[in-house]
């Protein structure tokens, strides 16, 4: 139940996936909107929310990775083609990388900015700056890296989501349900037996 099995992800992996996915997906429009608003007071607080949730993603992802290495991974359905397996695993590795690279480059923006605005996560804990060069050009570099990584990974995440929906509604296999229900034990459904009405 808590741990992953050969058939399904366990509750812990499922919670990690969906909580992180939700925050991650929220961070992208939040980031896009906050840099473009002209209301300075609103912008200041949106930046602080964005930083706080970003640090939350970073912390949760570190725990998630530890949990992943302490667990087996449910086997891919036998009906999946080799290219599909490779494609999905590459996407997962890229998504895992972005869960670290994006918050770290965000942290680098806050650390290298001459404004030196403290990171006070949810007005609760002060996160110290990374020991980086403080200058306008360093800040511009990390901002560009952060933005590029965020938008590129949004495309990867979109492919990932479309693939999950494709498995569920088109191929009708267990890929999506095993990331939703930790009690799932039933064998995989055959890929195309049921005809769409």
């Amino acid at each position: 139940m808590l741990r992953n099995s050969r058939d399904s992800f366990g509750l812990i992996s499922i919670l990690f996936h969906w909580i992180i996915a939700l925050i991650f997906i929220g961070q992208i429009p939040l980031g896009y909107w906050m840099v473009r608003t002209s209301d300075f007071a609103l912008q200041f607080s949106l930046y602080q929310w964005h930083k706080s949730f970003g640090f939350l993603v970073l912390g949760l992802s570190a725990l998630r990775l530890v949990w992943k290495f302490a667990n087996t991974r449910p086997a891919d359905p036998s009906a999946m083609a080799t290219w599909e397996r490779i494609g999905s695993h590459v996407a997962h590795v890229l998504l895992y990388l972005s869960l670290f690279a994006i918050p770290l480059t965000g942290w680098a923006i806050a650390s290298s900015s001459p404004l030196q605005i403290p990171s006070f996560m949810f007005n609760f804990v002060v996160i110290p700056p990374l020991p980086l060069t403080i200058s306008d050009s360093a800040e511009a570099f990390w901002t560009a890296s952060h933005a590029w990584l965020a938008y590129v990974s949004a495309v990867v995440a979109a492919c990932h989501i479309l693939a999950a929906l494709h498995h569920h509604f088109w191929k009708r296999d267990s890929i999506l349900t095993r990331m939703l229900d930790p009690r799932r034990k039933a064998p995989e459904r055959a890929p195309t037996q049921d005809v769409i009405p």
Partner: protein
Amino acid sequence: MTMPTHFIAAAARLGIAIALAFTPLAANADTLSQVAGSYKIQPSSRIGFSVGQVGGGGINGDFKKFSGIFKLNPADIGRSTISFTLYPESVSTGQARIENFLRSDAVFDSANFPTITFKSTQITQTSPNTADVAGMLTARGKTSQATFQASLSDHGKNSITFHVEGKILRSRYGMDVGTPIYSNVVQFDMLIQGQRS
């Protein structure tokens, strides 16, 4: 052998202490009566401020443009007055982005509220050369009571300099953006130079 040396040293120290205790009083009683009159605040004054931030450090700056007059009545300090006008547009912190933020409608809204004014309501002497200056501070259309501590630091025949300190709660003036990352308390540290007018 050591007894007499100790005795002499102790006596000398006592003598100096007595002399020190009486001199400033005498000097002040003598000179304060000469300073009566009306003064214009000189541009050479310094209106410094600082706002602390979580984890240490903060924002320091000063205002370059201001004006004001004060009337000194040493015979009855309570009848002295000061009125002071500050132009928040002239805020200077050494960081253009911070200055623009401070001028914007997030903080001073200097386009709609070009001045910050202070008018004393009660001046109370607290020692031979210090006084508490209470008055009404108006910023961003809001008026609230504020108190500053003034101490005489220098004076000549036609000029006088006070060191003035005070703490202002910016929330009272609708300027609490950025709290609690940045303190609600603005510490003023000013050198007010007056020229007899």
